[in-house]
């Protein structure tokens, strides 16, 4: 069934009819709404972690505990910038509402123009996300070598537990990015499903925001 028409009407019998505007846009909004509800749920999950952190820290005699080695700040800060940059590249790829990616060159279909404009940015996002994980590994190794393990009281537990949970989300995000990249190359994105890329971007931005909060709480405060 075609959905290209932006305005369509349907009969409801007895001469009544309902005119619905842009069914495509409506369906896209439904998808986005579903994703937002999902992300709200995810946000509650991470909020719980931060609540646990605040609870334990409020009850601690001193924070960080006196006998634990200090965490590095410079490298994680750089890593935060890397992840932020990846959000910018992804957003640059899908374009904004004000500046949508609709520049179709003569003789080039919509899917091909999308491939030309989206693929490099998705690849860049993937590379930055991968770099983030690599740098994260360096941070973990350094902290581990300085004597803080996941069993060093709750300080170690919180540091490794929270960052690993976040890293798992980054891994999931990278797999999704890979899938988006392959589908872009295969010219799979039509008018009907290109919203999926936007949903993936929402998830990626979410993981990014969570990291910024985590960086501030774990390393700076």
């Amino acid at each position: 069934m075609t959905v290209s028409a932006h305005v369509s009407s349907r009969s409801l019998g007895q001469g009544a009819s309902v005119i619905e505007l842009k069914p495509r846009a409506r369906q896209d909004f439904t998808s986005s709404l579903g994703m937002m509800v999902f992300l709200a749920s995810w946000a509650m999950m991470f909020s719980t972690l931060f609540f646990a952190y605040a609870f334990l820290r409020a009850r601690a005699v001193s924070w960080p505990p006196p006998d634990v080695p200090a965490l590095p700040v410079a490298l994680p800060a750089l890593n935060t910038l890397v992840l932020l940059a990846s959000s910018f590249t992804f957003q640059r790829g899908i374009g904004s509402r004000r500046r949508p990616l609709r520049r179709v060159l003569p003789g080039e279909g919509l899917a091909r123009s999308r491939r030309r404009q989206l693929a490099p940015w998705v690849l860049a996002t993937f590379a930055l996300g991968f770099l983030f994980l690599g740098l994260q590994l360096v941070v973990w190794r350094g902290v581990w070598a300085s004597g803080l393990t996941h069993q060093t009281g709750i300080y170690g537990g919180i540091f490794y537990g929270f960052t690993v949970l976040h890293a798992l989300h980054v891994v999931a995000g990278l797999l999704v990015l890979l899938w988006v990249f392959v589908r872009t190359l295969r010219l799979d994105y039509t008018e009907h499903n290109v919203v999926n890329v936007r949903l993936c971007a929402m998830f990626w931005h979410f993981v990014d925001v969570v990291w910024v909060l985590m960086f501030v709480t774990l390393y700076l405060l």
Partner: protein
Amino acid sequence: MDLQPIHPAPTGFFRNYIWSTDHKVIAKQFVWAGLLFLLFGGILAMAIRWQWAYPYEPIPLIGKAVLPRSGGVITPASYQSIFTMHGLIMIFFAITPLMIGAFGNFCIPLMIGARDMAFPLLNALSFWTFVSSQCLVIASFFVQLGTAAAGWTTYAPLSTNVGTPGWGQTLVVMAIFVTGVATIMGSVNYVTTVIRLRAPGMTYMRMPLTVWGLWLTAILNVLFVPVLGSAGLLLLMDRMFGTQFFITGAAGGKGDPVLFQHLFWIFGHPEVYILILPAWGFVSDLVSFFARKPAYWYKGSVLAMTAVTVLSAVVYGHHMFVTGMNPLLGQGFMLLTLIISVPAEILFLNWLHTIWKGSIRLTSPMLFALGTVFVFGLGGLTGIFLGTISTDLYLHDTMFVVGHFHFTMAAAAFLGSFGALYFWFPKMFGRQMNETLAKAHFWPSLIFITLVFGGQLVAGYAGHQRRLFDPYQYTFLQHLHPLNKFTSISAFILGLSQLIFIYNFFSSVFAGKKAEQNPWKVGTLEWETTSPPPHHNYDVIPTVRRGPHEYANPEAIKLLGRDWLTQTEELPEAAAPKQALPVAGA
């Protein structure tokens, strides 16, 4: 158009019954999965009652088979597992799938006039994720040291490796995490579907109260199940990787077992409303349908349910009055808790007002709805004593608490679900249930469920602590043995009377009388399509013209000769072309 296209019905066994994306099939899958585990959890409950009536005596019939090493006698270790798994199975693997999985899936799209959920694939995924969590639960019974034994609340440090070593507890915590993921997937669907796929004219204030109840439940699920998920993850880290979030006394900052209680109840208090809000919805609709009167103060019911939903998020501290909480904080929680009784009371009075002077039809769904009103009333009244600090200090951790939450979460949810099942059964399976057997199921269920949980209230008031393996080793509880025996025998009769339902259910599913389209003569949308509905629910998406409770409308009686109106039909007069009114001065 497009927004909700008609997809061809799937062909083949696999796409029809196993991996189906049709919300009606998924609902039925949840019915089966939920009823199976309801039976399982019920048998565990019988074992607990056996222990309190006849301690150290072998369980008759099945005892030797399930507890071979002790010759059918319940040992302290197996007793701990039994009451733990009874609670967890009932809450997460029986009531949740039955009430939210089955009726949420079945009712929401049909009652708002949609062809399916907003995300049908996610829906199927949700069901199979749920099944995998059930598999984890079953697997936990077969590992060394047995299944979970830390109580349904899974309090640390009992639930850490210190209290419950072995894989059983770990698998069950994993199962809860996985079932939480399934619940969230389903709830994302419900929330989005209600917001986006209501039929034209189906405004929020025309939605059946069932949909309101299920929708608010879904919102609570989306926001608070992840809290439990996080707590479960932290607990799993403690159990599997040796972190110390919930273990106190470690170097490098102390963990805190009380943290687990906070996380658990931040989820847990909304959860108890998650389990009752759908039942409130069912009851609010059913009393109106079968009293043949509009629901009294519909908007008030909606507001009350919404208020309870909001308040449920800020009262969790009343579960923790005795954890050394700051008394000022405790008072705040007490105040908020007692405020909840105001909207709950509004809802309750609305039900009574709806029944008042109605032409009541005592059909089986109506009987179950009235039973729900009764047991929920008892549960709500006893809750006031537990929400008040001064009385809670005495009653905390006694059987009074057990009786209270069983009246609200178990009895009301149980009777409410059965009312809903009897009501929507014709639409679900296209067949009619045997009404006589349904009533024969109702009366013993109501009477004995009241006696069982009433007995618990009385025992608790006399000081009977909950979860005691052998209460009678305490002299001050020995005189409660006859009472406990009476309660247990009531429980056994309650259990046996469920056989009537099992027989009725199976014989009706496979050989019941074919149901007509609208056997109960009610006006909500789902009764305007065939029983069972076609794959796409509605040939034409209906246009809604009025609210869900149009009964005893004098105009309808005059014009149509019946006492009810569907949500879509036009009155004959209104359909006639209007005459142009003379305009003054024209």
